[in-house]
């Protein structure tokens, strides 16, 4: 970006952001969606998105290209997420891969644009037996409590818990196979 030397006109390079506000506005929605896909709840997604921006913005070189800025944000997000799981659980439950997840920051951001989560969830659920699929749909996609899910499936609450656990175990194995 070149400056007009005090005159009222200056050239703006379309490939750089120029100020932190534009970096923020262009990436906050995309980065949040990525974090939400990795933690599955709003409070954590908000905290982690906040941490990425508050960590990445102060030292950011604003003359860097948009691509470099997004890569930097993604690398910061990877570190922030890894720290979160280390503190919370001691295991890297989910991760960010800068190679494959850059699409979250580069593809057009629309409010109605879904992440890859529904596609992946659909693949997992499609591979399960009917009752396993149904208990997971009720619990995770249709916002049913375990009691409500048990009532819908006409089974006891304790049976619903066992069914959910077995279904999740099978779904986890399927997910591993799908990723390989």
């Amino acid at each position, binding site marked *: 970006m070149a*400056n007009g030397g005090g005159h*009222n006109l*200056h050239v*703006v390079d379309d490939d750089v952001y120029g*100020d*932190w*506000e*534009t970096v*923020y506005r262009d990436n*906050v*929605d995309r980065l*949040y*969606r990525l974090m*939400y*896909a*990795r*933690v*599955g*709840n*709003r*409070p954590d997604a*908000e*905290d982690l*998105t*906040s*941490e990425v*921006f*508050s960590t990445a*913005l*102060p030292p950011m070189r604003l003359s860097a290209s948009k691509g470099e800025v997004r890569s930097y944000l993604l690398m910061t997000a990877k570190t922030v997420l890894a720290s979160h799981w280390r503190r*919370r*659980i*001691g295991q890297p*439950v*989910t991760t960010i891969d800068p190679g494959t997840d850059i699409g979250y920051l580069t593809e057009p951001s629309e*409010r*109605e644009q*879904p*992440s890859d*989560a*529904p596609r*992946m*969830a*659909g693949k*997992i659920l499609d591979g399960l037996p009917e009752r396993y699929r149904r208990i*997971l749909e009720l*619990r*995770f*996609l249709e*916002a049913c*409590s*375990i009691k409500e899910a048990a009532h819908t499936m006409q089974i006891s609450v304790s049976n619903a*818990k066992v069914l*959910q*656990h077995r279904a*999740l175990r099978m*779904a*986890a194995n399927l*997910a*591993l196979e799908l990723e390989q």
Partner: protein
Amino acid sequence: MSARRLSAVIDAIAAGRPPGPFRADADDAELLRTAIQLRAARPGESGPTTAFTVGLFQRLSEQLNGREARRPEPMPVRRRRTALVAVAAAAMLVAGTAAVTETVNHAATGRSAARAPQGSEVRTGTFQTSNGKVLGQIVAYRGRPSWVFMNVDVPNYSGPIKCMLQVDNGSTVAFGVFAVRNGIGQFSKTIGSVDVSDLRGAVLATPTGSAVAEATFAG
């Protein structure tokens, strides 16, 4: 992790609550990862709220505009997000937008400062339905330029919303139409035809004229 503890953690994930903290082994982690994948696929919940994006913008403004004088402070976790904060943050966001525009137009060097309007120059109101349910906030700023910002959360609605400003003399001014997607919408625009101090309130309606909510400016 015990089966009971694992079950409680899965319940938290299914309910959209942060799990833990706890110690998990690799097998448990696989289970949790799958639960998160499924929960993150729930329709309509993957995007940030307006209150969050404007609130974070405000906190970053405070952090970055003061950074030459002090080290950046870590972001507080799990901040309370109240309607009042959302209104203040909205004011800051729009002020920041105006500052960015000014920077581009006048080739100013250095960073633009997000200036919050002060005192009686800002008027705020709360959008409420006819039965008193709060749907959003509106902020009007009297300055150069004057502007109005609003954000709404209309459950189960996607489509255009028409905003009409009510003036003290009883007249109504069409202010604009904005899109609400998955219940969430925000709108900001400069205002020149009416003095902000003469505004009484605002009405939101669907394109067919059905009233959605009404706000009265508090000050």
